[in-house]
């Protein structure tokens, strides 16, 4: 049990975005959602976060329908890291992270353990030194870590991340993925980078045009055929003790199909 989507179907502006997708992660595992642009990764995360409602199927948290849960109760369990979350306000890192305590705040503003949760979140993301810096002075990676810290301050059991490694250099990509991996939460991560997905995820779900085309262990899911089908690119996959590794090749996948 935990957060799961059962056969969710969703159309947006007349276009089918998700056509019956099921996601049922093991508790405390890291699930990667793969797929090309427009395949429905972000939409799936929005449904899981309860920001939108599916037309068919449902999202459940511990067996309870998310549509019937109060938003605040949901926000105490599920946190979303959205790479597009931006602000023009000159707000400090610490105050951004404190926003994560809003769902826990009591009527008159009290929040038991809130200070500790904020301090833990800052420490886990390595932001203690930066906590008094203003948002608009942060680099892309620092902003991303701040968004994650805000989500951690919610003390969620489920963490949803939409392309958390976008615009980061390789060191920060690894750092963020290791951080997600290390946390005691169920993480559902939309990713573009196949090698990062293979390295850090316990389970992969590949979407194409709103449908699940593959689901399972990284080593089983990542095949040359699937990547040619879904992304339309040629690649070679080498599997060793560390798992599968994808090396892309130039040229259209049809040429690859003919040569073998």
């Amino acid at each position, binding site marked *: 049990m935990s957060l799961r989507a059962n056969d969710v179907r969703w159309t947006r502006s007349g276009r089918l975005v998700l056509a019956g997708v099921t996601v049922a992660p093991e508790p405390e595992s890291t699930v990667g959602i793969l797929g090309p642009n427009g395949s429905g990764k972000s939409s799936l995360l*929005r449904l899981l*976060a*309860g*920001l939108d409602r599916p037309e068919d199927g449902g999202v459940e948290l511990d067996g309870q329908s998310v549509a019937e849960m*109060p*938003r*605040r*109760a*949901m*926000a*105490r369990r*599920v*946190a*979303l890291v*959205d790479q*597009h*979350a*931006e*602000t*023009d*306000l*000159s*707000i*400090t890192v610490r*105050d*951004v992270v404190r*926003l*994560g305590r*809003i*769902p826990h*705040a009591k009527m008159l*503003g009290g929040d038991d353990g809130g200070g500790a949760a904020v301090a833990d979140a800052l420490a886990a993301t390595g932001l203690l030194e930066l906590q008094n810096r203003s948002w608009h002075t942060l680099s892309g990676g620092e902003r991303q870590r701040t968004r994650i810290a805000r989500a951690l301050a*919610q003390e969620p059991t489920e963490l949803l991340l939409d392309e958390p490694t976008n615009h980061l250099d390789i060191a920060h990509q690894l750092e963020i993925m290791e951080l997600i991996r290390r946390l005691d939460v169920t993480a559902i991560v939309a990713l573009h980078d196949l090698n990062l997905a293979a390295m850090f995820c316990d389970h992969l779900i590949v979407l194409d045009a709103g449908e699940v085309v593959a689901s399972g262990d990284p080593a089983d899911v990542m095949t040359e055929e699937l990547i040619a089908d879904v992304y339309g690119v040629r690649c070679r996959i080498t599997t060793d003790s560390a798992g599968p590794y994808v090396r892309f090749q130039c040229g259209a996948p049809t040429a690859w199909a003919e040569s073998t």
Partner: protein
Amino acid sequence: MIVRAWSVAGLWAVGVAVFIVSSALAVTFGPAALSVGEVYRIIGEHVGGQFSGATRLQDGIVWELRLPRVLLAGTCGAGLALCGAILQSLLRNPLADPFILGVSSGASTGAVVVAVLGMSAGTLTLSGGAFVGAVLSFLVVLVLAYAAGGGTDRIVLAGVAGTQLFSALTSFIVLSSADPEQTRGVLFWLLGSLTGVAWRDVITCAAIVAGGLLTCLFYARTLDAFAFGEDSAASLGVSVFRVRLALLVITALMTAVLVSAIGAIGFVGLVLPHAARFVVGPGHGRLLPTVVILGAVFMVWVDTLARTVFAPRELPTGVVTALLGVPVFAVILLRRRAGAR
């Protein structure tokens, strides 16, 4: 120059003291030859002291003209600045002001209709008409905004459309039927003027501003959640639709009451929230009381200048807010830029 937590309370205490002193000074200014002592003896008599010995005229000038006017200026400044701060946060738009939802434009239509149709004698006063117009225009904007999808940019665009529609209606009514004298009076009033205010206005406005402030303080943390947009607020457990509708209705009602009492005084609601944010940061628990105090002090002085600089003639208060406020704001902007380097 963000102030630390322990000094924010001190800042508010100083602010309230400055407001009291400003009001106490403001009532002593005016064209009538009254000494400071006479002014306070008259006020003292009304709040339970002994007979002041003033004539009925002098008594009227202080108790019926100056004091309510000063208090109303402070109340309206506080209310407009508060509405501006809320709308800027809610719509995530630094250019939002209390009139962004078409309220002032609807008020002018309502006032002009009353003036032209000459209803003031019986059914509806100028400010009553303005209030009805303001509420009607807000409803039009709200329906349009939600029919168009309800996002922040749709609300702002619906506000622009509503403002244009009601401005056009006002012009149409003025040009087609009014005589110049009637409309001149209405237009002067629309620029913002505190002439001829009564205790009744002070009490109505103070009640709605106090109620609005308390409600908004209750929503302070919720408003903080909008810092990163509505999706972000929703993922922090905020019912975006419900909260936004509630706060839009509250700010529109506050603005409608204030506009119908004193006309559309611009600038206060647009710029003072920014000034307050420079001082105490964007957190609403600190921002809202700060902006209310700042607005009150600012308007007391602006109105005092408006009625004394060219005495006995008066400037529209809205003109003075801009003439005085823009240079002050420019200084804040420049200093902030220098500080950021």
